[in-house]
C-alpha cells in the first residue's frame, strides 16, 4: 500500500509513473536512480508491501551532510510535480510467489490514484537474442492496448522496434508465438496485468549482459527521453552516484547487489548465526 511521507496523500492524477523491473543488470533500477537524482525528485511516500524483501540504507541521493542521514527503504515513491512525473524505485527482490500479487496491488493503486500511464524500464538477457535481434538496436518497446491508440504513431515516427514475439517453447518449432522477456523479472507479469486490467503500460527495455551496467542505464534513459523528453542525461551525476567511482570494478559489481539482496542459500553458514 502507498503510505505518504506527509499527512495527506499527494495528488497524482494525470501523472506518468516511471518504475523499474528488477531485471538483468539492474538496468531499470539504475535508470530510475539516474532520473531521480538528476531531476532532484523529492520523496513523497513509500510503497509498503509484504511482497519485497525488506532492506534499508542511507539516502542514496544525498548531496549534502544534511540529507545524507535520511533512511531509504525497499520501495519508495518520488515526484516532480512540475512535470507531472512520479517515480517508484524498487531496491530489492520479490519474495517467492509474491511477484504477481505485487503487480496486482501496484496496478490497482495506479488506477485509484489516477495516473495517466505507467512506463516500466527493464532489461533482458542479451544472449537470448535471435539472429535478427543481434543485428539491430538493443532497445525494444511494448505497449498495452490502451497505450497503443495514443502512442503507437509516436513510436513509429521514432523508428522504434517493438519487442518481437518468439516461440513460447523455444525448442519446439511449431509452438505458439508470444512475447518472452528472459531476465526481465516482473516485466512480463506487469505487462500482462496492464493488458488485462486496461491500464496504460509501456515497457522500455534493453538487451544487456551482467557487468558494469551504468552505460546501459544511461542508454535506457536516453531511449526514454527520445519519447518523453524529461531529462538531459548527465554523466557527471553517475560519477558521484553512490560513491561508485571510488570503488574498484569488483566492488562496483557487488554494490549493484544492493538492489537485490539475494535470499540466503539453504545451508549457507553466513546465515546461521546472524548475531
Amino acid at each position: 500500500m502507498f503510505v505518504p511521507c506527509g499527512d495527506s496523500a499527494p495528488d497524482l492524477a494525470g501523472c506518468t509513473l516511471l518504475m523499474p523491473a528488477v531485471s538483468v543488470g539492474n538496468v531499470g533500477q539504475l535508470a530510475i536512480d539516474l532520473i531521480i537524482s538528476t531531476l532532484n525528485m523529492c520523496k513523497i511516500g513509500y510503497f509498503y508491501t509484504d511482497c519485497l524483501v525488506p532492506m534499508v540504507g542511507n539516502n542514496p541521493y544525498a548531496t549534502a551532510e544534511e540529507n545524507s542521514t535520511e533512511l531509504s527503504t525497499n520501495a519508495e515513491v518520488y515526484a516532480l510535480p512540475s512535470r507531472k512525473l512520479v517515480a517508484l524505485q524498487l531496491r530489492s527482490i520479490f519474495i517467492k510467489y509474491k511477484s504477481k500479487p505485487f503487480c496486482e496491488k501496484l496496478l490497482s493503486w495506479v488506477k485509484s490514484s489516477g495516473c495517466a500511464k505507467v512506463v516500466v524500464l527493464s532489461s533482458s538477457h542479451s544472449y537470448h537474442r535471435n539472429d535478427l535481434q543481434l543485428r539491430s538496436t538493443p532497445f525494444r518497446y511494448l505497449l498495452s492496448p490502451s497505450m497503443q491508440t495514443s502512442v503507437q504513431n509516436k513510436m513509429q515516427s521514432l523508428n522504434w522496434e517493438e519487442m518481437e514475439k518468439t516461440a513460447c517453447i523455444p525448442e519446439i518449432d511449431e509452438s505458439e508465438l508470444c512475447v518472452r522477456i528472459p531476465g526481465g523479472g516482473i516485466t512480463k507479469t506487469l505487462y500482462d496485468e496492464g493488458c488485462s486490467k486496461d491500464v496504460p503500460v509501456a515497457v522500455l527495455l534493453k538487451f544487456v549482459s551482467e557487468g558494469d551496467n551504468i552505460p546501459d542505464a544511461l542508454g535506457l534513459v536516453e531511449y526514454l527521453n527520445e519519447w518523453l523528453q524529461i531529462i538531459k542525461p548527465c554523466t557527471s551525476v553517475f560519477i558521484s552516484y553512490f560513491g561508485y567511482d571510488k570503488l574498484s570494478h569488483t566492488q562496483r559489481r557487488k554494490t549493484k547487489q544492493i538492489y537485490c539482496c539475494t535470499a540466503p542459500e539453504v545451508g549457507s553458514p553466513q546465515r546461521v548465526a546472524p548475531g
Partner: protein
Amino acid sequence: MKISFNDKSLQTTFEYPPESSLQEEEGEAEESEEEEQEEEEDEEEDEEGRRETPEDREVRRQLARKREVRLLRRQTKTSLEVSLLEKYPCSKFIIAIGNNAVAFVSSFIMNSGVWEEVGCAKLWNEWCRTTDTIHLSPTEAFCVFYHLKSNPSVLLCQCSCYVAEDQQFQWLEKVFGSCSRKNMQVTVLTCRHVTDYKTAESTSSLHTPFLKALKTQNFREPLCCSLLEQPNIVHDLPAAVLSYCQVWKIPAVLYLCYTDVMKLDLITVEAFKPVLSSRSLKGLVKNIPQSTEILKKLMTTNEIQSNIYT
C-alpha cells in the same frame, strides 16, 4: 537424500530437506541462485502458476501454515489474540537480534532489573526448525518478549533465530500490529559479518568489531556511533523493523556491529557497550562491572570443546 551439515560451533544444524518435501521446498532452493537465474525462475514460476492444480495450491497452503509466525504465552500455553503491542502498550522497545546482541542484552540490561516474560514467537523455517506443536520447549524459545516489572511500558525482545524473508512481515504484524504507534521508541541491536561492509578504504584499516548506526527520520537523539555509510545496506529482520518504523514515523535506531566472529564472542558483545550511554538505555543499566562478569560466565558456559583430538 539427506545431507547433514552439523557444526556445533555455529550452534545450528543444517539439513537439506528430505525427498518428500522437495516438491514444496524446491522453490526456496531455486531462490538461492544468481539474480539472472532468479528472474528466469520468476517467469517459469508464473507459467507454473497458470498450470497450478488444486493439489499444488493445497500443498502451498500447508507450507504457508507451517511457516506461520505465532505469538504464544508460554505460561498459559495460549496464543495471543491481538498483536503484542496492542496487549502491552509500549514506550520503549529494545530488540536484540542474533546471539551476540542477545548476550549483550542478557548481561547488561536484563540483569539490571526484574523482567517478566510476556510472550514468545514460534516459527518454523529451514534454519529454525521448531517442532510443530502448540507447546514450546525451553530449547525452542528463540524469540522471547519481556517487560520490565517496575515499568511495564518498557519491552525487550531477544531473538536468536533467523526469521526468513517470507516471515518478517508476519512477525511485524504479530508484534507491532498493523496500525501506527506514536509515543514509542525502538532500539534494535544486531551483528553482521565484516565482509558485508563495503568501503573504499583498505580493509586492513578496519578495526573489527565496530559499531554503525541507522536511524529513522523521527529519531532525534544523539547517536552512539557514526552512521552507516552508503552503499551499505541492512536486510533481514532488523531491516524489516526499521522499514516499518520509517514508514509509520516511529523514532527508531539500529545499532549494527560489524564483526569477524559471528559465533558468540566476548569482544563482539562488548563492542555494543557504547550503546549503554544512549538516552533510552541509560536508565536501564545499573551495574556494568557486575554485568561484565555475568557476560564472561555466559561465554564460558557456551564454549564448546572443539579440539578434535579429545
